[in-house]
């Protein structure tokens, strides 16, 4: 499919997703080279348009753009655009007038990147770097990339020069645990993992699952211990829980949450010996994830961070280098 912007994980079909992961494998090799830079986006300008603080994500995108030799403008517009007196339309048209070639958007409101991409205010490709409680598609891609590497070895892409596609995640079972309702990471991951052929199991208290989750391409369980025994997952992805949620009666308190849905040392032990532990960060140690799990050799948390740059390089390259030629 011709991808013009990356707004949602549902923009990616299997072929495009695998192509991006394969591309990311090539991008990952750049970090080991004498010159850690490719000239592919020389002369292009990428704007990081962040309406919400996220140093980690911004730095990851910035590093990715710079490794592709793009010029990077960081545009921090914290808070609602309306309260600032400047509408999203004005911001978009300003960027269009500057002649930017790509816009990476982080926004506290679900759908803001869609609006930027579809309202006709600017033509540059838009990359959703996290919008409200909607999606965070590059996070899902980097999670898939990380999983593919540990499940299939490095590099997991097709043989050099043959044009063959790399592997997907068919046959893998991934369990996503925690606050699915408020998680853009979970929404993007359910879709991407499904697209790549993995089975997804969501485990959470019913209060932290969206109404209508039955319509998603995954299974849903409330009891983590039973789910671990039932599915013997290849990986568990622990979602960050915001403790303020207990004041809104999503769960009684942190202690009960940890006891029922935290990845304790005992639950880590109950997982299959070759299961991997993932977390999009930043972690609440001792709440949704125990130190034993976070620091275990099975934890992929730092791999996820490291792989973020390669995946974002692949995404930027894919979106900013013109139309699909085949």
């Amino acid at each position, binding site marked *: 499919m011709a991808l013009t912007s990356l707004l949602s994980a549902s923009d990616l079909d299997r072929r495009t997703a695998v192509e991006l992961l394969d591309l990311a494998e090539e991008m990952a090799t750049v970090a080991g080279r004498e*010159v850690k830079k490719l000239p592919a986006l020389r002369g292009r300008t990428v704007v990081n348009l962040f309406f919400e603080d996220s140093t980690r994500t911004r730095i990851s995108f910035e590093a990715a753009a710079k490794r592709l030799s793009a010029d990077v403008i960081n545009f921090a517009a914290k808070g609602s655009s309306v309260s600032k007196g400047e509408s999203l339309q004005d911001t978009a048209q300003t960027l269009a007038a500057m002649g930017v070639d790509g816009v990476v958007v982080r926004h506290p409101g679900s759908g803001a990147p869609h609006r930027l991409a579809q309202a006709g205010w600017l033509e540059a490709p838009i990359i959703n770097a996290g919008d409200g409680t909607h999606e965070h598609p590059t996070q899902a891609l980097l999670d898939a990339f990380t999983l593919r590497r540990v499940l299939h070895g490095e590099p997991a892409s097709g043989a050099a*020069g043959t*044009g063959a596609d790399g592997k997907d995640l068919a046959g893998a079972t991934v369990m996503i645990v925690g606050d699915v309702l408020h998680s853009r990471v979970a929404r993007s991951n359910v879709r991407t993992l499904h697209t790549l052929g993995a089975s997804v199991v969501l485990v959470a208290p019913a209060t932290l699952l969206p109404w209508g989750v039955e319509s998603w391409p995954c299974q849903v369980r409330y009891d983590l211990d039973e789910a671990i025994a039932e599915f013997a997952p290849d990986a568990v992805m622990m979602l960050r829980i915001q403790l303020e949620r207990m004041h809104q009666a999503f769960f009684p308190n942190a202690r009960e949450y940890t006891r029922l849905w935290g990845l304790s040392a005992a639950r880590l032990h109950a997982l299959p010996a070759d299961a991997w532990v993932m977390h999009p960060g930043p972690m609440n140690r001792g709440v949704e994830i125990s130190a034993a799990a976070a620091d275990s050799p099975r934890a992929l948390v730092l791999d996820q961070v490291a792989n973020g740059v390669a995946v974002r390089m692949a995404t930027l390259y894919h979106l900013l*280098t*013109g139309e699909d*030629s085949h």
Partner: protein
Amino acid sequence: MRQRTVLDEHEITRAVTRIAHEILEHNKGPQDLVLLGIPTRGVPLARRLAERIAGIEPGVDAEELTGSLDITMYRDDLRRSGRRKVHATSIPAAGIDDKTVVLVDDVLFSGRSIRAALDALAALGRPRAVRLAVLVDRGHRQYPIRADHVGKNLPTAASERVDVRLRETDAADGFTGDEVLITGGEE
């Protein structure tokens, strides 16, 4: 459209053998030699050259000699020509620093690909010398670039197309054997 074969399988094999000998002669043996194929068809050609060299020089392992060098990211026409598929870059374990690197491609035309390859190479390390081997040189250079080893010099019209078909990359329907074809041009 008129189409004619200018090199057949037998002639291609002979050209590869001759180039292998030339490379060895110029390098005074196989030591510190690296053959990097430029995807797509430079890669199998580099491998064939390495195998031929291993056949001539006992003790040489063709695998350790060859690699591939993807140049997509270094092209100067990324915006204009549309997105291209990126191929793997693989470098022999010994690296390229202080080696004699022979870039291998199927057709030498404008020279733009080779310019990109030189940039790509510079990002990977610092060879002692870089040489260029091509199966076909069809002329029409736009850069001050020449090949050190040429399978066949082929005068062509700019409007003609030169296609190389190799067993490793093109063995699909109707493939009868390695060949180089010219399509189009004046009657």
